[in-house]
C-alpha cells in the first residue's frame, strides 16, 4: 500500500511545516512518496526527502507547473495515480484547488480536511463548521484526502530519501498565472505559529490593527483576524481564521474584539489556551475562553503589551 503526498511548494520552496504535518497523518497509511512540483522544485524535493517517514521523492520541474495551476498539476497527479492507494496533501488552498479535480478525474470522492485516521479507508472530518465530527468509510479504490494540519504534529527529520526526477504531462493550457500579491512578513506563519493574536471588528480600523500587531510582535506571534475585520478592510484576507479561512491550533490564541461566531470558533477552538478580550461580557467567545477579560480593548491591549 503506497501513498502519494503532494508536498506544499511555494515558488520553489517547501512549506516544511504543512508538509511535515501531512506526512505524520499519511505515514500510518503506507510508504509515503512525496511529490514536489513547480517551475523549480529541486530544492523543495531535497528538503522533503529529509522529512521523517518519506520513503521517496518525485520531483517534477516544468514551467507549466509553476504557480500550482490546478489543471496541469492535477493532470500530472492523475498520470501517477495508478501506483497509489492514497493521494494526500495538507489542506492548504492549493490542495483544495487541486485534489477535488484529481478525484473527479479518477471517478472517486474526495475527503477534505480530514482530522483523524481510523484505518486505511475510514477517516474523521469536521462538518458544519466543526459542530459535528463525521466518521466516513470510503468505498473507492483510491482515496484522495487533504489533511487538516492543525490536528497533526509535524514529522521530524531523517537522512535524505532518494529523489527521482519526473517530467510533466501535457499542459492543457487552460489557465495562466498573472500575478501574486503576497505580503512579506517576518512574523511566523499563521498556521504554524505557537501563539496567535487575532483582532475583530471591535478593532475599528486598519490603523488600530497596529495595536494587535504590536502585541503579536511582543509575543513572537502570528496575527489573525475575523471575517468582519477582513471584510471591513482592517486586515488582509490571508489573516482570516475560521470555517472558511485558516484553521489554527496554537498553544495560545488571543482573541481581541471578536464576538465568537461559530464560523470563527471553527478555526480556533482547538487552541490549547484561549484568551478573550471583549467589552461585552455576554460575547460567546467567553464560552470557549480559558481566560476572559471584560474590558475595553483600547485600554487592555496596550497595557497587556507593556506588562508581558
Amino acid at each position, binding site marked *: 500500500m503506497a501513498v502519494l503526498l503532494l508536498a506544499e511548494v511555494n515558488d520553489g520552496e517547501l512549506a516544511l511545516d504543512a508538509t511535515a504535518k501531512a506526512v505524520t497523518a499519511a505515514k500510518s497509511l503506507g510508504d509515503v512518496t512525496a511529490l514536489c512540483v513547480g517551475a523549480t522544485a529541486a530544492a523543495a524535493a531535497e528538503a522533503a526527502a529529509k522529512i521523517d517517514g518519506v520513503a521517496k521523492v518525485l520531483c517534477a520541474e516544468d514551467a507549466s507547473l509553476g504557480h500550482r495551476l490546478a489543471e496541469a498539476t492535477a493532470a500530472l497527479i492523475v498520470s501517477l495515480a495508478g501506483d497509489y492507494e492514497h493521494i494526500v496533501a495538507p489542506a492548504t488552498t492549493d490542495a483544495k484547488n487541486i485534489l477535488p*479535480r484529481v478525484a473527479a478525474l479518477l471517478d472517486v470522492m474526495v475527503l477534505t480536511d480530514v482530522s483523524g485516521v481510523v484505518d486505511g479507508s475510514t477517516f474523521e472530518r469536521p462538518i458544519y463548521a466543526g459542530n459535528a465530527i463525521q466518521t466516513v468509510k470510503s468505498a473507492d479504490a483510491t482515496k484522495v484526502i487533504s489533511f487538516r494540519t492543525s490536528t497533526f504534529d509535524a514529522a521530524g527529520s531523517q537522512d535524505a530519501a532518494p529523489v527521482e526526477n519526473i517530467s510533466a504531462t501535457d499542459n492543457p493550457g487552460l489557465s495562466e498565472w498573472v500575478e501574486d500579491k503576497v505580503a512579506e512578513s517576518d512574523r511566523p506563519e499563521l498556521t504554524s505559529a505557537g501563539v496567535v493574536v487575532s483582532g475583530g471588528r471591535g478593532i475599528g480600523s486598519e490603523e488600530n490593527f497596529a495595536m494587535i500587531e504590536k502585541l503579536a510582535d511582543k509575543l513572537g506571534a502570528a496575527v489573525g483576524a475575523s471575517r468582519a475585520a477582513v471584510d471591513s478592510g482592517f486586515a488582509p484576507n490571508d489573516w482570516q481564521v475560521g470555517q472558511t479561512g485558516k484553521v489554527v491550533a496554537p498553544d495560545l490564541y488571543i482573541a481581541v474584539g471578536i464576538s465568537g461566531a461559530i464560523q470563527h470558533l471553527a478555526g480556533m477552538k482547538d487552541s490549547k489556551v484561549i484568551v478573550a478580550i471583549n467589552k461585552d461580557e455576554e460575547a460567546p467567545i467567553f464560552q470557549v475562553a480559558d481566560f476572559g*477579560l471584560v474590558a475595553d480593548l483600547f485600554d487592555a491591549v496596550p497595557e497587556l503589551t507593556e506588562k508581558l
Partner: protein
Amino acid sequence: MKVLVPVKRVIDYNVKVRVKADGSGVDLANVKMSMNPFDEIAVEEAIRLKEAGKADEIIAVSIGVKQSQETLRTALAMGTDRAILVIAADDVHTDIEPLAVAKILAKIVEEEQPGLVLCGKQAIDNDMNATGQMVSALLGWSQATFASKLEIDGDHANVTREVDGGLQTIKVKMPAIVTVDLRLNEPRYASLPNIMKAKKKPMDEKTAADYGVDCAPRLEVVKTSEPAERAAGIKVGSVDELVAKLKEVGAV
C-alpha cells in the same frame, strides 16, 4: 452568454447545529434552511454580469430534496431567469456527494451550453469545497477557485483568488468554472415585488435518473459525533491577573 449557478439548500448559518443522540447525523427536521451563503454571492455575481451586459440568461440549479425549490425561488427572486430542480433524494437528511452533484451539473452544462458556471466555494453543511473543481474536471474546462474578483473579457476571464499566501490573479480560458469567495460582492435582498414575480418564473423539475447519474454515496457515514467540549474557563478581573494566569499555565 448563459450563466449557470448551482445553489444548495443548507441549514441556515445562524442555526446552532444539533448532533442526533444516536450518532446517525445532524438533526435537520424542522430546522431553518437557507441558500448556502456562498451561492448567494454566486447568484449576485451572475446578476451583476447580466446587468453589465456580459450575460444574457441566468439559470439556477439545485440538486437534492423537493424542498430545494424554495432555494430556487429565492434565486429567482434575486434575479435569475429560470431554474432547474433535480430531485435526487426524499429524506432531508440525505446529502448528495459533490461527485454525484458534479456529474449531474456536467450533464446540465452539456444540455444548456453556458459560458460560465458560478459555484460557491464551499457548502457550509458538509464543508467539502469540491463541487466546482469536480465539474471543471469532468468537463475539461478551466477552473478558478476562491474568487474575490472576476472580470470577463471576451474569450477569457481574469480572476483574483484568495489563497493562503494572499491573492493570486490568473487568466482562464472561457468557458470556465469559477467558485466564489466571501469578498466577491455583497448579495442583494430580494424585494417583495420580485418575490411575487419569481413565482411565475419557469422551474423545470427533473430527477437524477433523467441524467443517468447514480447518486449512491462513495463515503459511508459510520457515525456522527459531537466535537470534544472545552472545559469552562474563568473571567479575570484585570490585565495583571491575566498576565499572572498566563504565566501560571506556562502560556507566556
